[in-house]
């Protein structure tokens, strides 16, 4: 996104340019989730539009991972509605599996299938879920691995790759399902510093190509360059929603100011 036009007077922001965004794709309505007595998601209302890149930021324990996991139903919710492309998330079984295939997920710990080669990691879903032939799936997988820059590692096992390479394979594995939206839960926070950028570059490229993305990250550079919107969470609530520029330069809530002062000063 081009933010060069958004350098307004101190207290005034023009509305963000959202002409490139489509219809609502991910919709959360009055979502509540408890872990025992802990109210981890409190009345969450959130809409992500097609092509939008949403960055979720917030202190540890605020519920960011739970939010992501609720969207593809790795966590159940206690009340409210979550729908993807107009379809409510089904409760269980085959239908849920089908809808999950449309929601890509990239984990902090990569979670590549440890007993399969890089190539087999990427082809497993297309073959077993989408029913592609082995040769079609492999051709597509090699194309995706090339795109994320690890094609030459295709025959290796995950444990033989660096963290940055593994995370890029994980992105390719998600992309191979042609998801409508991709969820990233702190995709770079388990990486050594020198590998963070190779993963962020791939994500920025995806954002540019119009992928709908929900990204939990504290990488402000990424948020500034790629995000349409930033959501700040604290204690299970969405405390603030703004454009990246607005949020990082003029946070409104005390919680956000406090949080930013902590992550900016180290």
């Amino acid at each position, binding site marked *: 996104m081009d933010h060069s036009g958004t350098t307004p007077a101190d207290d005034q922001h023009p509305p963000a340019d959202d002409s490139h965004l489509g219809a609502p794709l991910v919709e959360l309505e009055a979502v509540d989730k408890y872990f025992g007595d802990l109210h981890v998601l409190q009345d969450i209302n959130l809409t992500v539009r097609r092509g939008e890149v949403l960055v979720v930021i917030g202190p540890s324990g605020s519920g960011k991972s739970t939010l992501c996991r609720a969207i593809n139903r790795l966590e159940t919710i206690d009340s409210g509605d979550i729908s993807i492309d107009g379809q409510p998330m089904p409760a269980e079984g085959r239908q849920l599996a089908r809808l999950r295939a449309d929601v890509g*997920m990239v984990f902090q710990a990569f979670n590549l299938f440890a007993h399969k080669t890089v190539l087999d990691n990427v082809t497993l*879903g297309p073959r*077993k879920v989408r029913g592609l032939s082995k040769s079609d799936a492999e051709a597509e997988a090699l194309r995706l691995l090339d795109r994320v820059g690890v094609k030459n590692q295709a025959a290796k096992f995950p444990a*033989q790759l660096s963290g940055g390479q593994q995370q890029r394979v994980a992105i390719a594995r998600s992309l191979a399902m042609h998801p409508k939206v991709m969820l990233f839960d702190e995709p770079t926070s388990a990486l050594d510093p020198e590998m963070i950028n190779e993963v962020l570059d791939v994500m920025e490229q995806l954002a540019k190509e119009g992928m709908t993305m929900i990204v939990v990250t504290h990488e402000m550079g990424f948020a500034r360059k790629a995000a349409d919107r930033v959501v700040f969470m604290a204690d299970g609530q969405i405390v603030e929603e703004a454009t990246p520029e607005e949020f990082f330069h003029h946070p409104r809530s005390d919680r956000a100011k406090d949080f930013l002062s902590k992550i900016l000063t180290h």
Partner: protein
Amino acid sequence: MEEYLDIVRQYDVLGAFWVNIQLAFWAALLSLALGSVLALFRISPIGSLQWAGSAYVTILRNTPLTIIMVFMVLGAWGQLELTLATDFDLNFFWLAVVGLSIYHAAFVCEAIRSGVNTVPVGQAEAARSIGLSFLPSARLVILPQAFRGAIAPLGNVLIALIKNTTVAAAASVATETSSVMRTMIEFRPDYIYAIFFTFAIGYVILVTPVGLLSTSFSRRLAVAR
């Protein structure tokens, strides 16, 4: 010495070991299949299947094998007329195989479950997130890694199974080692020590490679993380 070897031949000690090897072979296959299904039950998201799996394991694991074997012959065959082969001796053989299998399946299940515990939850979550439902993700992602993490405990179950095949005597399999040994001791008490060591060493020779192999396989096939 010469005379003792004649006795060994006369009572067909090698043939007796061969019976136990066959019992162990078939029971290993069947208990592996049954134990895998039980393990699937226990890790499945369906409450009633989990319950059934753990009830099976709790009951079978805590029942003495002799009780099961006697039941197979006097209950399942004698009263319920379960017949697995028309040949009399062969029928007892297969009843013993079934008894051994249902007993050891409980241990196989627990061994596989300990293997499942070596698979990080992230593996299952990644499988679900690409749209695999429970059975495909178990078959393609969880169990292949679980088996590789369960080789050592499965080896221990196999060792126990091989030794436990002698309990087939309780299911009237008269040609297996412990029954043959009993006959030999009855008729040749002058050789009791030699007889005992023949069978003891026979089992050591049978079982030791299993332990060595399972240790080496479990190291060689371990999933690198």
